[in-house]
């Protein structure tokens, strides 16, 4: 019995966004990374094209993070030095570097200044070849100050600046436009705010091919289904032609997975059946990422090198053509 393959006829697609700039393009990156561009649901290549495979961003910080024992063996020798850390992330297979300027948080004892942050970004760019994304310290005013300085220091490199939020996006958008960078718009697991923020950022004059969405992932076991459904709805919106839901999505698999006790608790504090911490932590992050892949994630913020290895192999399998 021949089965008539039932294909969805979509009119829209996910916006393609390029991160980084090579020498020819006015930057110093060895390569650029393209995000998004899909004209179908995740991995259904038989009914549309998926021109860019999901990318892997490694999370690095400008100060030593409180990641504890599970990460000591991997980053213990570099996490006091953002440049060394960035280089290590490249060695471990980062497509993109994601620098969080946590050290500029004004609530810290000796917060780094906007100038310090600009210098850190500059020296990271001088010593690495991957495209860069930069997240400010989170404090609204300091964010603006820091990201403006970073945007200037990285002029021509087409980095991404974040996080622009509904109540604080104007000056970040201005910094992004000034330096011709991309912008990361964050919405709090809310499809309406996601769309509203995209409209506001676009109205500021940012080009659509410069916008990345961070709809704030929830981790496995702790509300990931909310993120999953919001991403599925946004992807569907993009495919039926809503351009304000069509920006590539970053998924915070690493940071969210490692907030869960299931990932970091040592065996003596583990729940019934959980087993050893190491494989559990690696799988908690990999599973978080893999689940969000199925909802349409375009770039994954990751921490554990072993989780990244698994995720990359899994993406290889998902990206194999499945035409009928």
């Amino acid at each position, binding site marked *: *019995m021949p*089965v008539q393959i039932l294909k969805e006829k979509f009119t829209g697609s996910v916006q393609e966004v390029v991160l980084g700039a090579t020498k020819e393009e006015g930057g110093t990156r060895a390569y650029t990374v393209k995000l998004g561009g899909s004209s179908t649901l995740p*991995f259904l290549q038989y009914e549309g094209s998926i021109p860019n495979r999901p990318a892997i961003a490694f999370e690095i910080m400008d100060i030593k993070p409180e990641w504890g024992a599970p990460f000591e063996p991997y980053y213990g020798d570099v996490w006091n030095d953002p440049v060394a850390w960035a280089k290590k992330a490249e060695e471990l297979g980062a497509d993109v570097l994601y620098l969080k300027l946590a050290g500029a948080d004004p609530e810290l004892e000796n917060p780094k200044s906007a100038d310090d942050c600009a210098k850190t970004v500059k020296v990271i760019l001088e010593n690495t070849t991957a495209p860069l994304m930069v997240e400010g310290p989170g404090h609204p005013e300091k964010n603006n100050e820091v990201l403006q300085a970073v945007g200037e220091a990285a002029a021509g490199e087409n980095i991404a600046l974040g996080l622009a939020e509904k109540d604080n996006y104007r000056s970040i958008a201005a910094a992004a436009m000034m330096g011709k960078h991309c912008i990361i718009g964050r919405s709090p697991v809310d499809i309406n705010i996601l769309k509203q923020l995209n409209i506001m950022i676009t109205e500021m004059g940012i080009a659509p091919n410069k916008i990345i969405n961070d709809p704030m992932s929830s981790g496995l076991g702790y509300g990931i289904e909310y993120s999953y459904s919001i991403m599925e709805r946004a992807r569907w919106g993009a495919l039926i032609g809503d351009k304000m839901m069509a920006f590539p999505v970053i998924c915070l698999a690493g940071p969210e997975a490692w907030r869960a006790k299931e990932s970091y608790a040592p065996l003596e504090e583990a729940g019934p059946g959980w087993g050893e911490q190491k*494989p559990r932590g*690696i*799988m908690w992050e990999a599973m978080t990422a893999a689940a969000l892949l199925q909802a349409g994630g375009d770039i994954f913020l990751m921490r554990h090198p072993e989780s990244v290895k698994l995720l990359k192999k899994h993406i290889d399998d998902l990206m*194999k053509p*499945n035409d009928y």
Partner: protein
Amino acid sequence: MGLTGLAIFKLLPKTNCKECGVPTCMAFAMALASGKATLDQCPYVSDEAKESLESATAPPIKLIKAGAGDNVLALGDEQVMFRHDKTFFHPTGIFIEVADNADVAAKVDEINGLSFERVGQKYVVDGVAIVNASGNADTFKDAVAAAAGKTDKVLLLVSEDAAAMEAAAAVVADKKPILYAANADNYEKMAEIAKKISAPLVVKGKSLDDTADLAGKVGYKDLILDSGARETSKVIADMTQIRRQAIKKRFRPFGYPTIAFTSEEDPYLEALQAQAYIAKYASIVVLKTTELACLLTLFSWRSNLYTDPQKPIAVQPGIYAIGEVTPDSPVYITTNFSLTFYTVQTEVESTRLPSYLIAFETEGLSVLTAWAGGKFIGEAIGPWLKDSEINDKVNHKKLIIPGGVAAIKGKIEEIAGWEVIVGPREANGISSFAKLKLGA
């Protein structure tokens, strides 16, 4: 997608006999269309009309049940492509393979022992797949008997040799196992075996075409589908087609639950592959691994995916004692959103300091959402706390609130006359908070 009243009316006797309880056949047709009446209320409907009405009003994907006693697994009866359109109803059954020529009893013991607990939920493996790896009918039969003697989990009998299947199925006839699989060569015999013990039968095609063909001609309706694909991206494509054709086109040969087998050798990659199959419509997924990290994460994912998006998940509001509490025990408060509650409960437990935890009625909203919605504020908590039973349980008046809502401190103190201590913003800060501030 059911029929309209008018379409149903055309199939009724149109005699207006009133025996169904409504005055006219038209009125009865309208009642049927809206689900307020059932066809058996009409004594005169023809068999022919009955069949076409039943198939038109049948669910797009048939509900299939496997297993017996307390371990019945319901599969299929799904209605949507996306969980946000309604919900997914019957969680994917997670099965683990056992080769018939291995130490079956030991392996089944191991599978029985796999049990995971987190956030107030318990996860266990749903079924055991006995695989006729030996190719020998007697070995298969003995292995099935050995497994059945060890476990009440649902059994999946994997052999395409009809004679081996017949002998093995007879041993577990009363357990309603799933039989795998009917193919182009053996389907008549397999259907006969399945019918004899009323067990669900998997049809295994070589492609979607072949699978539809088999499902159409097998002459049995308790089916589960396997398109034969084993490559991850291909399985996802096939499963999506099967679900889509069943729901959107009511393509009957695909109106059944589905089964997927992992093919990855590495257990971690295997778990990720199984994750994709759970996300993309498998009713059963069969794995080889028994690694704890793989199964814990997979069960957690399944539980999240099948959470009903239409209702907030809440715990019973009230005062919970954690550990051997005394009148000196500290008192924490959080919302009754179950994820929040269980996360806090886990952390309070791990301080090893017996404590009270209040799950405050916020209609299942999380702390910040409930605060923003006026359900977790001083004006709500204060009056409740003032008259609460907690006043009789402890000899102090100190309440620990989540750090994210420090602003409600003053109002609670004013109304309830309790001292409010601002706790950490995140649950994972509770243990250091308890050490520092409570001497845990």
